[in-house]
């Protein structure tokens, strides 16, 4: 901001102003972090920011197995529910087949109990048929219900071998390939809403945070695009981070109109209008 004043002096008055301002700038810079020097510009607060997607998820499998197939490439747009990748888990598939067979068997068994009778003989030696006690039918039904539950469990376990998209988004990064081992603590891809970007401040000092309010208007200058966009504050971190030795708060800004050409990680400068 001092560059505007740093033009070659034309007269004594300008010369003096220039010198005084330079001195002030040098002192302020020496005294505090860069943001502090920028923040003194009248009634506005200025902070560096970075462009991030509104939502980003590190997706991975929750069981460890070899990856059979990855169905997407970096940059692909996927819809919620789309299959992203699958694991090679024949044991779980066989278990599923076994559970299905077990369920069918238990169902027929339960049906059979309804018609089962016991052949008995009366005193004269004549045969008659007596139905089984009612508990036999109840037990058959309970077995069928248990087989159903086991089938649901087997299906749930097998479902863990398939990774589906939890929301509409773009595959921003792919960390694994088919044939590699998937592990619960190692996400295999990053799914992000690259069509909905936000700006997050990185160096907004604790000194200025009291001047920032939710809903406040701001101007975000994107260096890569050389353009300014209007935005507003949607979130203020309730807890500070430290940047070097400085205490800073993360403030998140949503654009009024989503600019084209934004990429994740671009640097920006946010100027908050304060009154």
């Amino acid at each position: 901001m001092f560059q505007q004043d740093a033009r070659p002096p034309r007269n004594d008055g300008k010369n003096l102003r220039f010198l005084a301002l330079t001195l002030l700038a040098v002192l302020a810079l020496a005294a505090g972090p860069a943001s502090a020097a920028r923040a003194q510009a009248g009634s506005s607060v200025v902070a560096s920011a970075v462009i991030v997607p509104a939502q980003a998820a590190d997706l991975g499998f929750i069981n460890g197995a070899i990856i059979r197939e990855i169905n997407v490439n970096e940059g692909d747009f996927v819809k919620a529910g789309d299959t992203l990748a699958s694991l090679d888990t024949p044991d779980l598939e066989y278990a599923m087949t076994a559970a299905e067979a077990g369920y069918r068997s238990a169902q027929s068994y339960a049906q059979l109990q309804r018609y089962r009778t016991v052949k008995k003989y009366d005193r004269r030696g004549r045969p008659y048929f007596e139905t089984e006690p009612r508990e036999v039918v109840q037990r058959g039904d309970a077995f069928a219900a248990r087989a159903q539950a086991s089938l649901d469990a087997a299906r749930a376990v097998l479902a863990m071998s398939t990774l589906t998209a939890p929301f509409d988004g773009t595959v921003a990064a792919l960390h694994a390939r088919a044939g590699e081992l998937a592990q619960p603590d190692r996400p295999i891809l990053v799914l992000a809403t690259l069509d909905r970007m936000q700006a997050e401040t990185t160096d907004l000092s604790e000194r200025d945070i009291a001047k920032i309010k939710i809903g406040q208007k701001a101007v975000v200058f994107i260096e890569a695009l050389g353009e300014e966009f209007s935005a507003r504050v949607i979130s203020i971190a309730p807890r500070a981070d430290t940047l070097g030795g400085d205490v800073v708060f993360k403030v998140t800004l949503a654009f009024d109109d989503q600019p084209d050409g934004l990429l994740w990680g671009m640097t920006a400068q946010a100027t908050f209008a304060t009154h």
Partner: protein
Amino acid sequence: MKKILLIVMTLTLAACSGLPSSSPTPLPTVSLDPVSQSESTADRLTASGVVVPYREARLSFPAVGRVQSVDVKVGDKVTAGQTLVTLDTTLLEARVREAQTNWDVADIQLRFLQRVGTAEQNLESAKADLERAQALLDSAKAALETQSALLAPFDATVVAVDAVAGETAIPGRAVVTLGDLSKFQVETTDLSERNVTRVKVGQAVEIAVPALGQTFEGRVASVALVSSALGGDVVFAVVIDFVKQPEGLRWGMSADVKIQAK
């Protein structure tokens, strides 16, 4: 001309170095240098501190699972018992139903034997089977309960959320951080072992919060029993309560404290 310049420069320097000026005063940074302690006098100890909430909790799941929904966002106020994050519980629910049907079978068997009458040993055996089924059912239900959702342990504000639907919850990795932001305290970061013996609970403290440009009254609430290391220094955390909760405080703001030690 040169004279004027000189005067302007001197004035500018004077304005910047001493009295309040248009340029912001730099925040005092945490100094590891024991020289900073030299400000401490016989009856006054100075230290740097940080504003912390009265209570905080870093919540995580006890086992691996797939996040089903994240019901809160940063800044939300939650009440004790409120659901914060849920996991996919399809498998655990099926396991509960399996255990329930096993219990049903054991129950039917016992009631049948009781109805038709049988030897005491057979009845005892059936009763034992039912008790075992009950224990397994309780266990499956408990697994479902602890693994299905993350609940707020106390009234608080959501400070950090590190989970998105579809992500994997890893045991021990904090998913939600809560802080009771209705009441703040100050915790010292650089009070040396040399001075800690002079700090007593209840001593009056002057708390300066540069971010607010204000000074508040406080009281020593507790002194750490175990030291921590700051750089090469041995320091003890002293927790200071505000006599009256100030407005506008935020977790992590820096503070300078002057403890009236005797």
